[in-house]
C-alpha cells in the first residue's frame, strides 16, 4: 500500500465513519461482556452465598443456575448482534471504500 493510497483512504469520510462506528460498537460490546462476567466471578469470590439463594422458598434450585445459563445465552446473543451489524452496515461501508479506490 503506497503512502498516497493510505492518505486517500484515511481522508475518505466512509472510512472515518467505519472506524469510529465499529470501534465504539466493539468496545461497548466487549465492556458489556467483561462487566457481566467479572460481576459474576467477583460475586463468587466475595459472596458465594448470594448465588446460593433459592429461587423460591420450597425449591432447591438456586438463583445461580438461571444466572449462569443466562450468561452463556448472553455471550451468544452478543456475538449475534455484532455479526449482524458488521456483516451488514460495516461491510457496506468497506465495500464503498473499495469502490472509491477502484474508481480512480
Amino acid at each position: 500500500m503506497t503512502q498516497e493510497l493510505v492518505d486517500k483512504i484515511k481522508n475518505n469520510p466512509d472510512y472515518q465513519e467505519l472506524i469510529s462506528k465499529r470501534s465504539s460498537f466493539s468496545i461497548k460490546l466487549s465492556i458489556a461482556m467483561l462487566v457481566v462476567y467479572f460481576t459474576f466471578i467477583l460475586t463468587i469470590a466475595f459472596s458465594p452465598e448470594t448465588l446460593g439463594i433459592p429461587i423460591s422458598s420450597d425449591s432447591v434450585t438456586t438463583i445461580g443456575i438461571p444466572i449462569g445459563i443466562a450468561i452463556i445465552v448472553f455471550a451468544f446473543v452478543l456475538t449475534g448482534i455484532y455479526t449482524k451489524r458488521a456483516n451488514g452496515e460495516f461491510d457496506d461501508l468497506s465495500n464503498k471504500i473499495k469502490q472509491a479506490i477502484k474508481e480512480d
Partner: protein
Amino acid sequence: MNMFNRIFLFLILGTIAVFASGTIDGEIVKQDLNMSAIVMFVIFVGATLGITYWAAKRTKSAKDFYTAGGGITGFQNGMAIAGDYMSAASFLGISGLVYLKGYDGLIYSIGFLVGWPIILFMIAEPLRNLGKYTFADVAAYRLRQTPIRSLAAAGSIATVILYLIAQMVGAGKLIQLLFGLEYEIAVVLVGVLMILYVTFGGMLATTWVQIVKAFLLLSGATFMAIAVMAHYDFNFGSLFAAAVDMRNTESLDIMSPGGLVSDPISAISLAVALMFGTAGLPHILMRFFTVSDAKEARKSVFYATGFIGYFYILTFIIGFGAIVMVFQNPAYLDLAKQAISGGSPILGGKNMAAIHLSHAVGGDFFLGFISAVAFATILAVVSGLTLAGASAISHDLYASVFKKGKADSMAEMRVSKMATVGLGIVAIFMGIAFEQQNIAFVVGLAFAIAASANFPILFLSMYWSKLTTRGAVIGGSLGLATAVALVILGPIVWVDILGNAEAVFPYKYPALFSVTVSFVSIWFFSVTDKSHDGEAERAAFEAQYIRSQTGIGAEGASEH
C-alpha cells in the same frame, strides 16, 4: 495415491489385529473388551480415513495444506472451531466436575465460553485480513520477521506440545477404560491416525474430521440430556431436587459456588487465563484462515459460540443426570476402592461419570457410541493441534526465519509434513513418558503461555501503533518466562509434584501476573525504543490498520 491405499489397508488390518489382541490378561483398571464401542470406533476411523483420502486428492498447494484452500464456510468453520474446543477433557472433565461439585462445573464452563465474544469483537477480523497461515503472520506484519516469528513459533510449539501431552495421556487412559486396550497401544494408535490425517489430508481433512466429530458429540450429548430430562418430565426443579436428595447433603452445596475459586486473586487470574488464553491458542487462531473473508470469519465465531454454549449447558444437565443415575448405583461403583476408602467412588474415577450415564440411559449400544465419540474427540483435537504446531515449524521457522521468506511452496509443504510426523512421534513418546505423572498443571500452563506470550503480541500488533520489535520480543519473552516460572513455583508443581511443604507462589493460576508483566514490559521496551527500525515500524502501522479494518489487500480477496 497407491501408498495411501496401502497404509489405509494396513491400518484397518492393524486396528483389527490390535483389537483382537487386546484380551490378554487384564489389569485392575482395564475393562473387558467393549464390542459395540469397537465396532463404532472402527466405523468412525474408516469414515475419517475416507475423508482423508478425498482431502488428499484436493490438497495440492501449501495454501490447501494450511487453510483448506480458504474455502470453508462460516457455518462449517464454526462447527470445526467448536470441534477443536470441545475436547474430551471438556466433555468428560466438565461433566465429571458437575457430577462431583455441582455448580462449580458451570462456573468453569462459563469461563471457557466468555473469551469467544471478545475474540469476535477484537481479533477475528484483523486476524483474517492480515494473516495468511499462522497468527505470526499478523504479529510480524510490520515488525522484523526473524525475532517475532521465532518467539511466536516458540509460544505456539510450547502450547501445542503441552496440550498434546494432556490429550495423549487422556487418550491412553480413556481407551484403557473404554476399550480394554493397553495404554501404549492406545497412544500409538492415536499418534499414527493423527499423522495420517494431517500429512495426507492437511487442513481439509482436519476440518472435516472436526465437523464430523462435533456433530457426533453434540448429537450424543443431546440424546443423553433429553433422556435425563425425560425422567423428570422436563422439569429442572425436579432433577435438581432429586440430585440434592441423592447427595443427601444438608446444605445445598451442589447448587451454589463451592471451593473452585476461593479468593478474588485466583478468581480474576483464572478468568484472565481463560479469556486471553483462548484468544492465543494457535490451533484456534489458525482456523480463521480457512474461510474466504472477514464476513465468514465473523459467522464462524457466531456459530462456534452457539455450539459451545449449547454443549456446556448439555454437560451441566449430564453431570446432574450422573448424580441421580450413576451415583450410588452399584453397577457403576468401584467396589474394591469403596472397601478401602469408603464413599461412593465410581469405576474409572470422576471423569467417567458421563460414560456411565450413557450406559444408564442407553444400554451397551449407547455406551459404545459415546465411548467411540470420546475417542474420536481426542483424535480430532490432536490433529488440529499437530497441524498448528507443524505450521509454526514450517511456515514460521523454516520458510520465514531459516529461508528468509524465499522457500518455495512445495518445499514448505514437505517440511510441514515432516514436522507433522515429528510432532506425532514426540506426542507418542511424551504420552508414554507422562503416563504415571501428575499432569494437572499441563493445560493450565498451556493457557498461561497462550495468554502471556501469544495474546499480548498479537493484540498489540493489531491495535497499538507504537509497538516495536524490541518491545514485542522482550515483553513477550518475559511474559512467557513469568508464566512458566510461576507455574513451577505454584502449588500444583512445587507442592503436589515436587513435594515441597509450601508454594513459593501461592496461586494456582499465574495469568493475572504473567499477562501484566507481558503487557507492561512490551509497553516499556517499545516506548523507550529510539532505534531507526523502531521509527519505521511505527510509521508502517497506518497502512496495516487500514488493511486490518477494511480487508483491502487481504489474502484471498486479492486473488480473484
